[in-house]
């Protein structure tokens, strides 16, 4: 329906660009460039992250994985590029996005408890002066329960292990009840139990029709966890389903030979 309208608009010559994002695409990036000083960290990247799927953003260190995600969200300024979420400019669709930043980005000695952090996910909903209703508190508790942290609700966040902290961040995103979940290295430095807990939650989100996009560094788990991959090294290298795109050829192109031969063989083994 909307596509038809878009086509007509294009025929009228009024459409902004022929690559105007389809309205059902959870996240579309067009020509994103981010630069630190005068060296682009991400250069002219286009991407379309699909619905009902889990996408891994993959690339070597310094390839601009996190930078691209942050720039898409407006956390850091972009030099150029358009971002749309479900076919609408991101500024108007903030309430449909939940972001899980890297754990290292905050001070864990901050005076706040686990449940307080989860309730931060509700701040947009309650507004400035609204009180957190009983239903909202219950919702926050439920989100903690989904990541297996219900028993820790009243702990100060500094008393948690790294994996537990990551789960609290995920619970905060869940509290936003969004349609698109963006995660920055959710499995970095967490224990095996946490990794399992997080992936189960994410898979459940996907099966409920949500889109999940995660910056991911562990190539050996890509096939188990994700359906789509987005390979980046400053520029976009490849994008598509794991079957078609997560290939030795593409990985070589992304990592530029920095991936050891043994590592490659290992991945080949997983592939076959």
């Amino acid at each position, binding site marked *: 329906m909307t596509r038809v309208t878009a086509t007509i608009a294009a025929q009228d010559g009024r459409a902004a660009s022929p690559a105007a994002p389809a309205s059902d695409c959870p996240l579309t990036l067009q020509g994103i460039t981010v630069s630190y000083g005068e060296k682009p960290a991400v250069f002219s990247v286009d991407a379309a992250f699909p619905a009902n799927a889990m996408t891994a953003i993959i690339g070597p260190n310094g390839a601009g994985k996190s930078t691209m995600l942050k720039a898409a969200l407006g956390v850091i300024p972009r030099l150029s590029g358009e971002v749309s979420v479900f076919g609408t400019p991101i*500024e108007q669709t*903030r309430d449909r*996005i939940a972001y899980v930043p890297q754990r290292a*980005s905050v001070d864990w000695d*901050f*005076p706040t408890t686990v449940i307080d952090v989860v309730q931060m996910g509700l701040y947009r909903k309650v507004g*400035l002066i609204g009180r957190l209703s009983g239903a909202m508190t219950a919702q926050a508790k439920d989100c903690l329960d989904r990541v297996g942290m219900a028993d820790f609700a009243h702990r100060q966040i500094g008393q948690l*292990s790294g*994996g537990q902290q990551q789960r609290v961040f995920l619970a905060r995103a869940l509290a936003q009840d969004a349609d698109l979940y963006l995660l920055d290295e959710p499995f970095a430095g967490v*224990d095996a139990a946490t990794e399992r807990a997080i992936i189960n939650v994410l898979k459940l989100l996907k099966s409920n029709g949500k889109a999940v996009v995660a910056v991911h560094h562990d190539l050996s788990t890509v096939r188990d966890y994700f359906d789509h991959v987005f390979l980046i090294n400053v520029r976009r290298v490849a994008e598509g389903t794991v079957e078609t795109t997560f290939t030795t050829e593409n990985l070589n192109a992304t990592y530029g030979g920095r991936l050891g031969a043994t590592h490659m063989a290992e991945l080949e083994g997983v592939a076959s």
Partner: protein
Amino acid sequence: MNSFLDALLLNAGYNAALVAIGAGLLGFAAGSSGTFLFLRKRALVSDATAHATLPGVGIAFIIMVSMGYDGRSLIGLLLGSAVTAAIGLVIIEWIARRTRLAEDAAIGAVLGTFFGLGIVLLTIIQTMSSGRQAGLEGFLLGSTAGMLFQDAVVIAIGGSLVVFVTWLMRRPMTLVAFDAEYAAAMGYSVRRIDLLMMGLVMGVTVVGLKLVGLILIVAMLIIPPVTARFWTDRSGRVVWIAGVFGGASGYMGAALSASAPAMPTGPIIVLMAAAIFLFSLIFAPVRGVAAAIIRHHRFQRRVHRRQGLLSLSREEPIREKFTLRLLERDGLIRPDGVPTDTGRAQAARVSRDERRWDIAREVHQDAGLTGRYDGLTPIEEVFTPDEIQEFDRRLGPPVAVGGLA
């Protein structure tokens, strides 16, 4: 002492009462609004802001005198100070955002430059023949002499406004202070909220300039939140506890300075806040120094006890005197070092715990669980009884400690 009580109960005269109430209100506003800047780790921005008020005071005085008004109109002076403080703030923000300089460098540059300019202006004013210029130096360290009712009204209105906005914006400010990236992703403008935090602090500074002085007002913005942090783990409470501490030190400090002749109000208020800080630093539960020392000693005793029991189970000699004393005191060994029956039993239990952990590491691949081994945590706290039974099966029958089976 009696005069201090009189001042506390507002019986020490009209002026003293006015000063005490004003200082209390100011302290509350400063403590609560300073909290978010402290939590954002930008507390020193407030110091630069305070110093940047001085040229504004001088310029406002010169303008008012040259236009034929009384140069000492408080409203005029405060407006002037607000203007230069705001300029200083914008410069700091701009330097930190647009250049490669870090914020501390920007703070240092702005603080020094503006303060220097202010002092030059005050010196010029002193040499100007016109106007009754006496009193501008009071803005440096604060003065209560001749505090008027309208001065107290300025503090009351300005302070209430600051507290109200702090309350209204508590959620966005908490979010930005804790996790600015997440706040930005949610669509909050981090820059505007940062400016708001600094603006609130600037408001308190301007309002409290005459009473406390620009050099010490920073103490009223920082010390109460730091103190409050000792008593709670929730940012929402830090705000109000800091307000109460700030208000109490303002009120009591003003009363104390009124009870003796020639006591400077601003410095006494700051010392009062410092006294509450010192008390909290030492005696606060959990985060205080005393609590930390007690916790450390308890922990040390646990370690020594465990090590001692392990030595007993391996029949190794214990050399450390502290360990020996501890074991003897607990009735685990006799004065000659031979383990008692209780000692033997406990040593056996500790030894079994260690061996269960060894097995756990072998069979359990879950680093999240086996990683919790620290030599002290009993295995029962980490694994289920079923799992432990399985470890025991692999371990074989228990072995008694002390050679006799």
